[in-house]
Every structure is written in structure tokens, then in C-alpha cells.
């Protein structure tokens, strides 16, 4: 099977959907002439022309709204945010318009739109450029939220997102764009709302998503050497969340670590823990442990940044804690 980057997997997903359906277009800052701030849309302008690959001014609120308007009357926009940090300026359109249009129109106006871009921290980009927004977005009924962790999932989920008749927020990762993985040439789709068991083990579950999937898999590899076998549940979709997959895993392992990039307070992990206490209360052998970013803005200094971010040692320590090994 061909091995490609996460970046190219995303690009292939959009390209295939644009070839399949001429209502699909890509809009955002630097997507056309510059070939994408992160080169996801390399070659798109040449292939599809400037009506379908649209460079915008720096006007997040504005072009998110343009996408909403276009979606209302039948197009299928893919709106690229250079990063989700900047999408904060567009949240009115995402939350107040896209997420509610179907509901407040009594089912008349569907909103087939994708909002996508890199989410979370890269390296030393400091406070304003290093934030993970999934809990904000997942809070909103009417939105779907996906956070693929591998090239295979990125392609299959993004294609489904583009075909979905609801607004879908796609949280990518700057640090993931260069990661590689097997992606078949044949077309495939991954349904939204389905988690995947990325690793099977009986001692403890790690429930995670997005960039942290790779960390969880590394933790599983290391712990396996000590004879500790981890169930790695990759949520893939944050909303709607695959509650069954969480329950199935935790009922089997009786222990859970919830690992995410974002902050602790009202984080995605808080929701996962709630599902666990509801469905698996009698199965738990230990309190669930959460791993997340430190409760501070992201610092620039290397040492502090490392201290702030969730990482492999922290994930492993959490597993050991939940297993009462320390």
C-alpha cells in the first residue's frame, strides 16, 4: 500500500471530492496562488481554476460567512483557516450561523460546509498560536467535529465530512502534516462518529484523539515491553462521540487514561470521563486519570513549553498511576 503524508492525504481527499462534485470549492487565505500555507492545496489552482480555489483577504469572519451563504444556496464549501487560532474571529459564523441554520429554519436550510485547519501546538509558537479548540467546538449542537490522527483517517474522514450535509469542523495538526502512513489508492470513506481501536490490550484503556493518538501508540509500545497491554481508543470524531466504543474498552480493561492536547477545564476529557462514570461505574478498578495541557497560556521558552504540553512520559506516568504501579 502506498505510504503518504498526512498533508497529502488531506489534499487527496479534497481533490477527489472536487473532481467528483463541482459544487465543492476550497476557500481561505493563501490556498490558491501560494499553494496553501501548509501546502495542502498544492497544484489545486492549476487543476481547478480560481473560481474553485479562492484566495481571500485576511477576513476570517467574512469568508466563513461567505461559506455559510454559499452552503445555504447549494454549494459545498471547504473553508480553510490558516490555523484554528484565527478561526476565533469567525466563531460567530461557525456557531451562530452554520450550527443553527437547519434548526432555526425548521429543517429548510442545510449547511453542507467544512471548516478545516491546523489545531493545537506546534513548536515554540507561544501563546496565541498554540491552542486546541475541540472542546469549544464540540460544545455546540449542530456541529460535527473530527480530529484525525493518521493519514489514513485524515483522508477517509475528510471525504466523509465534505459529503456530509452538516457543518463539520476538521481539526488537523501542524505537527502531523509531515507524518506518514499507509493510504490505499482505492477510494474509501470513514464514517463520522465512529472511534477506532488502534491497539488492543487488556490492562488499561487510553482514550484519545488527534495528535495525541501517536503519543498513545508510543506509550502502548513502551508499556508492552513491561508486559502492560494498552487498549488505544482513537475517538477520531469528537462530536458525535462514539460512547459505545469507550464503554466497550473500559468495561474490558477496568482502567482508563484520557489523553488530550487541550486544557483540563471543561475539556474533551471531562466529557469522556462523564461517559465512563455513567456507563462503567461498576467496572472501574481505579479513578480515571486525565492528561492534558498545563493550565496556562503556552510559553515560548523550550523548557517551559515542554512542561506545559502533554507528552509520552506524562502519558506513561498516567497509565502507571491508574494501574497503581508507582
Amino acid at each position, binding site marked *: 500500500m502506498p505510504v503518504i503524508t498526512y498533508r497529502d492525504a488531506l489534499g487527496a481527499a479534497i481533490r477527489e471530492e472536487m473532481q467528483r*462534485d463541482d459544487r465543492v*470549492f476550497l476557500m481561505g487565505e493563501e490556498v490558491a496562488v501560494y499553494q496553501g500555507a501548509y501546502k495542502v492545496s498544492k497544484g489545486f489552482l492549476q487543476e481547478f481554476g480560481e*473560481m*474553485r480555489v479562492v484566495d*481571500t*483577504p485576511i*477576513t476570517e*469572519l*467574512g*469568508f*466563513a*460567512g*461567505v*461559506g*455559510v*451563504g*454559499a*452552503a*445555504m*444556496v*447549494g*454549494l*459545498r464549501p471547504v473553508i480553510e483557516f490558516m490555523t484554528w487560532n484565527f478561526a476565533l474571529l469567525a466563531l*460567530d*459564523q461557525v456557531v*451562530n*450561523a452554520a450550527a443553527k*441554520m*437547519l*434548526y*432555526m*429554519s*425548521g*429543517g*429548510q*436550510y*442545510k*449547511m*453542507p460546509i467544512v471548516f478545516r485547519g491546523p489545531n493545537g501546538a506546534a513548536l515554540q509558537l507561544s501563546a496565541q498560536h498554540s491552542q486546541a479548540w475541540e472542546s469549544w467546538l464540540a460544545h455546540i*449542537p*449542530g456541529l*460535527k467535529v473530527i480530529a484525525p490522527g493518521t493519514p489514513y483517517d485524515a483522508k477517509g474522514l475528510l471525504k*466523509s465530512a465534505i*459529503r*456530509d*450535509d*452538516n457543518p463539520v469542523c476538521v481539526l488537523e495538526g501542524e505537527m502531523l502534516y509531515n507524518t506518514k502512513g499507509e493510504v490505499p489508492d482505492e477510494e474509501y470513506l470513514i464514517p463520522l462518529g465512529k472511534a477506532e481501536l488502534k491497539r488492543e490490550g487488556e490492562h488499561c484503556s487510553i482514550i484519545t484523539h488527534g495528535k495525541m493518538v501517536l503519543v498513545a501508540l508510543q506509550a502502548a509500545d513502551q508499556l508492552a515491553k513491561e508486559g502492560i497491554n494498552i487498549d488505544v481508543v482513537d475517538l477520531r470524531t469528537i462530536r458525535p462521540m462514539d460512547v459505545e466504543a469507550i464503554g466497550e474498552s473500559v468495561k474490558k480493561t477496568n482502567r482508563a487514561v484520557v489523553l488530550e492536547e487541550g486544557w483540563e477545564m471543561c475539556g474533551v476529557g471531562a466529557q469522556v470521563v462523564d461517559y465512563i462514570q455513567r456507563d462503567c461505574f461498576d467496572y472501574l478498578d481505579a479513578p480515571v486519570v486525565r492528561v492534558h495541557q498545563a493550565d496556562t497560556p503556552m510559553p515560548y521558552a523550550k523548557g517551559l513549553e515542554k512542561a506545559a504540553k502533554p507528552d509520552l512520559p506524562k502519558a506513561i506516568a498516567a497509565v502507571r498511576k491508574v494501574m497503581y504501579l508507582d
Partner: protein
Amino acid sequence: MTATRTEKKRKSDSAAATQQGDPTLNLELLRSMLLQRRFEERCAEAYALGKIGGFCHLYIGQEAVSTGALSMLRPDDYVITTYRDHGPALARGMTPRAVMAELFGRQDGCARGKGGSMHMFDTNTNFLGGHGIVGGHVPIATGVGFAIKYRGGDQVIVCFMGESVVNTGAFHEALNMAGLWKLPCVFIIENNRYGMGTALERASAIHDIYERGAAYNMPRNQCDGQDVFAVRQAVGEAVERARKEQIPTLLEVRTYRFMGHSMSDAVSGTYRPKSELEEYMKRDPITLLRTHMQEAGQLTDEQLQKLDEELKAIVQDSWDFAESSPELPVEALYEDVYADTTT
């Protein structure tokens, strides 16, 4: 195309009105405006009785804007507006029944009772909503203009907004893109002088707000919003330019709201004296048109009375219909959150 000084501004006067001689058309315009008026008078009553809840912003005093503007559109064009949307919805041809049932929060409302006063939507008439976030719908209008151009169509979108909208970032971002990309959008500012209790002069650095179109390289114009013919003329030019040349326009229509900001607000008070209101009410858009028609011998007292009675009956019918329309079952709560379809 660059806007020239001359086409920017055309002050209309009542002379524009007297040129309008087509009695059939005039009767249609009068009918549309009077329907909105009679309808909303009953809305106020229903609100007092608790049959309508929440925020309810009446359009009374501004009817020449909706009727004048929307009378220049084709059925396949698009319309989008703010929460002050009952008038535009009726002027666009949505049925009084569907609008009243929506206000009553009933199943047969245009949005199944999910939207209410501020969120009228109708796919049949391409009415893309009443929107509740000041400025939020303007980028959406630009997006509809983008979609029209993308498909190579010759439709236009008319986007109504209050004058307070010009101070939002969304307005600037939306008009910049519409001007930059030459989209078939007609942006109509209904300048009723106040945003709630804040006079335009206390909110905008410039007071001839159509001039803001200059920043977007957009043809711009100003007209009298109490004179339905002046509105028709100005909107007609803008629609033609949008349809034929894909050039957007910013049009400032000077009007006045005769009621409080919403049903829960005082009609006058600290922000505007009663005397000012009374002065403006002398230029009631319906009275102006009616007088013009009567003076031109196009309307007898008898005809007027008959029309009024007919419209009152239509509004009563919408009330009865709304009242007998079922309440939504609780299961409906969870419907319409997500579409269960894909392409």
C-alpha cells in the same frame, strides 16, 4: 467599475412619486404595504395577549422599503434580512398564515415554530432568514452572491440591514469581498436613525453612511425610504447593475421606525422625544402612497375601504390559522439539529 460622484447620491423628492402613474402597480404596492401594517398591528395585540413571546421587532413605518425593494426582484432572486423581518417576509410573498403561525410558535409556522419572530425562513420564496446577530447576515449575503457567480447565474441577492450594522466588522469584511470579487449583491441599509436607543450620530464617524461604499469601490446611493417610488427607482438601478454587470451596490434608505425597538421597549423616551416621532409620522409611507393615488384619481374611498377590510380579514384568517395550528410535540425538540443526509 469605479463609482463616480454623480451616481453616488440621488436625493429623491416627491416629484419622483408623482411620475408614477400605473394604477394597477400602485394598488399592488399599497396592498403589500397595508398588509404588513395590518398584520403587525395584530402582532402587537397578540404580543400583549402573550400569544407571541420573546423578542418581537415591528417594522411599522418602514413598509415602503420592503415593498419598494422586493417589488424589483424576480422570484428566483434571494432575500436576507435581520430580526426585523415580518415586513420583508410578507413583502416577499410568504403567506401571512405561515408567518403568524411561526410567531405563535406552532407547527405550521414557516420554520415549524423553531425560529420565532426573528428567524423567518422560506425556501419557496428564497427568503434566507431573519438573523439575530447584528451584522452576522451580511457576510452570508456576500456568500450567496458568490454562489450565484460561481454557478454563472443572473440572480441577485438583496440584503437588508439596520444602520447600526455599518459599524460592525462583519459589514466591512462582507462589503470588501463583494466589491473585490464583483458579486451581484444589493446591500440596503434601512437607516431608521436608531439602533435601539443609540442615534446614528452617536455611533458612526460619518453620517452619510452610504459614503462607506467608497471604501469598497462600490456604487452607492441614498434615497427616501418613506417614498415607495424612490425606493423602487434606487433599488431597480442597483438590481439591474447586479444582474447585468455583477456589480454590487450600497444603498442607504432613510426611514424611521414608528414603534419601540421591540415590543418590550418604549416607543419614545430618553433617546428620542415624542415630538420627533410625531414629526416623522407625518410622513407615513402608506399615507404618502394612498394620498398620491387618491390625488391621481387612482383610488376611491370605497376601494380603499374594501382593500382594508379584505386585508384585515386575511390577517384575521392568519391569526385563526396560527391559533388552531398544533403545538409541537416534545419529540420535535431533537429534530432539525442535524440533517441525516449526505451527498
